[in-house]
């Protein structure tokens, strides 16, 4: 063991150079780094949100709402389809996740089933001729429309994907620095926005579905019934925010919807000076809106955002230009936020915030300072203690090994961009203790061997070889514990597990190899008869 092979020295020297090179960027300010030549590494420690300040949000896509919406739409489509085919029906209703309808003329039941299958179903991905709905006979004269489970799940999965894309676009528009948006599990999304310490704005921007529709106002509806929430078939009662009436009855079928917008921006109404949102339709939207408004001059249409009527203007002339504006009680900021939302598109399903963690930048800076001071003091304490315990030579060698270890940990953490969290700092200190343990095991073993009457060189050899199995076993258990934390933990705990694992690996490396090389060099230079630790 103590024979000094060349590769050991090379490995130790290379590791030290790597450690210095890749940990140095952490000492330099960002501007200095940017002006350095290209071969100098730039990556600094990746601080977690608890140290940097920022917001962490865990969102859940409400796939149940997606189902409910699909159900409502299908009821409407069934009504429209059957009416268009001239098939009389009654008792069209939703029942336990399915839709049931009674066909008045039993002879036409098969016709109805065929036309419903053709009009309502969409082809099932990955199959030929499969459809996402089934239409079956139900009782004497009824039909039952059910949704295929696999299709619903695929749709929910797609909705989560889309939501991630839309959230990314919205956050980019806010100008948040380097947000991380990742999917977690089946229907969850994690958003991490460093530096964004106003979670309310963030939540407003990503939490709003922003589903915009233009729907005709149902002027024929009985207002007294509507006040109790009842609306004629094909219409619905929506709360109104136009400040004139508390609710408005609108036709369920949307004239045009938000997908058909190509642009939206905040502006001001030239007459009233109010903040408004200007928008522009694509060609399909422009044509539909033009046709619909031409056919209903003098009537009102409602601009509906997430199930609430923003305003319900009267159509004075056909609006054919494909552009328009939404006025309501906007401030310039809220109009701008709405424009951002409309540009980025609507979320396919509502999101609920399940978990939120926000740390102000100042608190983060305090934590970094406390972390630096306490780690520094802890580190120096360990170094001093090792020198006190094992003397200048063996203690000093441990100190060098520990210093290289610290450099390596910082370098590896910087290169892998592993997240350093506040508990992670504690992990760092702990790995230094682990490194000390490996050193102590080796030194204690050497003392044992000297006492057993061996020569200095034999004792050193035996110290390393016999301590090895203890060192390996002891560290494998720590790595196992870290793996478990990584598997089950979240956020800061994972950061801790990472730091611990990296630290254990570098600690074993330095405590075994660096110590060995240094001791071998010392031995070759002085040829001692005994070791100064007995």
């Amino acid at each position, binding site marked *: 063991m103590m024979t000094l092979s060349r590769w050991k020295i090379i490995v130790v020297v290379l590791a030290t150079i790597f450690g210095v090179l890749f940990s140095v960027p952490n000492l330099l300010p960002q501007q200095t780094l940017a002006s350095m030549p290209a071969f100098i590494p730039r990556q600094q420690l990746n601080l977690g949100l608890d140290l940097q300040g920022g917001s962490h949000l865990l969102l859940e896509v409400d796939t149940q709402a997606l189902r409910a919406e699909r159900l409502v739409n299908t009821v409407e489509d069934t009504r429209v389809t059957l009416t268009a085919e001239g098939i009389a029906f009654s008792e069209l209703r939703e029942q336990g996740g399915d839709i049931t309808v009674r066909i008045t003329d039993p002879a036409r039941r098969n016709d109805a089933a065929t036309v419903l299958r053709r009009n309502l179903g969409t082809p099932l991905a990955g199959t030929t001729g499969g459809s996402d709905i089934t239409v079956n006979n139900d009782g004497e004269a009824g039909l039952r429309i059910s949704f295929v489970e696999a299709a619903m799940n695929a749709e929910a999965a797609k909705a989560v994907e889309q939501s991630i894309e839309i959230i990314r676009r919205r956050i980019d528009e806010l100008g948040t620095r380097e947000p991380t948006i990742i999917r977690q599990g089946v229907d969850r999304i994690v958003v991490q926005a460093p530096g964004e310490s106003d979670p309310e704005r963030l939540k407003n921007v990503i939490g709003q579905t922003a589903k915009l529709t233009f729907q005709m106002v149902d002027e024929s509806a009985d207002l007294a019934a509507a006040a109790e929430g009842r609306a004629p078939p094909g219409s619905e009662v929506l709360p109104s925010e136009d400040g004139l009436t508390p609710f408005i009855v609108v036709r369920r079928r949307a004239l045009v919807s938000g997908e058909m917008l190509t642009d939206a921006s905040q502006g001001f109404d030239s007459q009233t000076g109010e903040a408004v949102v200007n928008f522009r339709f694509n060609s399909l939207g422009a044509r539909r809106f033009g046709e619909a408004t031409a056919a209903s001059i003098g009537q009102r249409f409602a601009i509906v955002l997430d199930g609430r009527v923003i305003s319900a203007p009267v159509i004075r002339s056909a609006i054919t230009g494909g552009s328009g504006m939404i006025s309501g009680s906007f401030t310039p900021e809220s109009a701008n936020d709405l424009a951002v939302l409309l540009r980025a598109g609507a979320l396919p399903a509502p999101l609920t915030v399940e978990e*939120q963690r926000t740390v102000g930048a100042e608190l983060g800076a305090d934590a970094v300072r406390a972390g630096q001071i306490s780690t520094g003091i802890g580190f120096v304490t360990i170094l001093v203690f090792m020198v006190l315990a094992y003397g200048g030579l063996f203690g000093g060698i441990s100190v060098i090994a520990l210093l290289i270890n610290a450099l390596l940990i910082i370098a590896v953490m910087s290169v892998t961009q592993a997240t350093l969290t506040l508990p992670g700092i504690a992990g760092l200190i702990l790995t230094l203790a682990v490194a000390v343990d490996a050193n102590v095991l080796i030194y204690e073993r050497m003392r044992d061997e000297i006492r057993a009457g061996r020569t200095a060189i034999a004792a050193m050899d035996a110290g390393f070889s016999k301590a090895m199995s203890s060192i390996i076993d002891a560290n494998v258990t720590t790595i196992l514990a870290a793996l478990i934390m990584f598997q089950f933990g979240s956020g800061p705990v994972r950061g801790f597990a990472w730091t611990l694992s990296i630290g254990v690996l570098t600690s074993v490396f330095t405590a075994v190899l660096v110590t060995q090389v240094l001791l071998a060099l010392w031995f070759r230079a002085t040829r001692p008869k005994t070791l100064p630790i007995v």
Partner: protein
Amino acid sequence: MWPLIRILPITTNFRFVAFAKFAGVASVLAAIASLFLALYPLTPPCGGMNCGIDFKGGTLLEISTAPQAVDLSRVRSELGGLELGDVQVQAFGAPSSALVRFQTPEGESSEQAIEEVKAALTSALGEVTFAKTEVVGPKVSGELFQNGLMALGFAIALMLVYIWFRFELQFGIGAVVGLLHDVVLTFGLIALFDLEFSLTSIAAILTIIGYSMNDTVVVFDRMRENIRKYKRMPLAELIDLTINETLSRTIITGLTTILALGALAIFGGPTLFGFSVIMIFGVVIGTYSSIYVAAPIILLWGVKRGEEEAEPLPVRT
């Protein structure tokens, strides 16, 4: 005098095993007391421990009224009038900061509740900065709790398998009983000193498991070596010898770790304080359990010795 290692006697000859019975009784009593403290009253999810919002759900705000000190009783009375379920206000680090925890009332969104609390605090205390906001929904808190417990369970099971694989089943059982002892006593400490039981505490306990195993493995490793070396020595003596042989390492490593963690506890600010205290306790208790829980279990159970293994080898051709 220097280096200090010379102060430690070259060979110690403490009769550790002689105290094992006494220590065993003490350990069992301490474990029962800890279980009682941690579990009673049996309110889900955390029993007698001070449940953080990670596991209970709810909202946590860290407020600061620097440079003035926070008037905690004023905060309590102000928030008491808001009809939020279970409001907790506690000092946190500097006198100008405090933690406020509350449950979101039924039928109200967490945003609304936060807005109300912020408005109430700002009107009562003047300028308040909200340095930290954490909201954990009921669904997530349930999952975090379950995952946390599962992590502890898996960690202990994994250690059993590893030690079994590297040593023998008796060693694995000894190590795991030692670990359970450490974990249960740590729960007791958290309950006794009303430390917050949160995700970070789980991380601390997992680390204690790692450290305690580390310590146990070093003792076991030496024991295995001695079992091979001294085939006829009675097991009790052999365990004493092993513990004495590894004693200087145990002391030095334990001391270094405690010194380093002490620095964290003193200078690391309020967030690291709880974490470091739990870890320091874990290091002490982990060291104790390697000597007085894990090793005596092996004594109770017995272990395969050289004589039994010395069966005639199958004849090789």
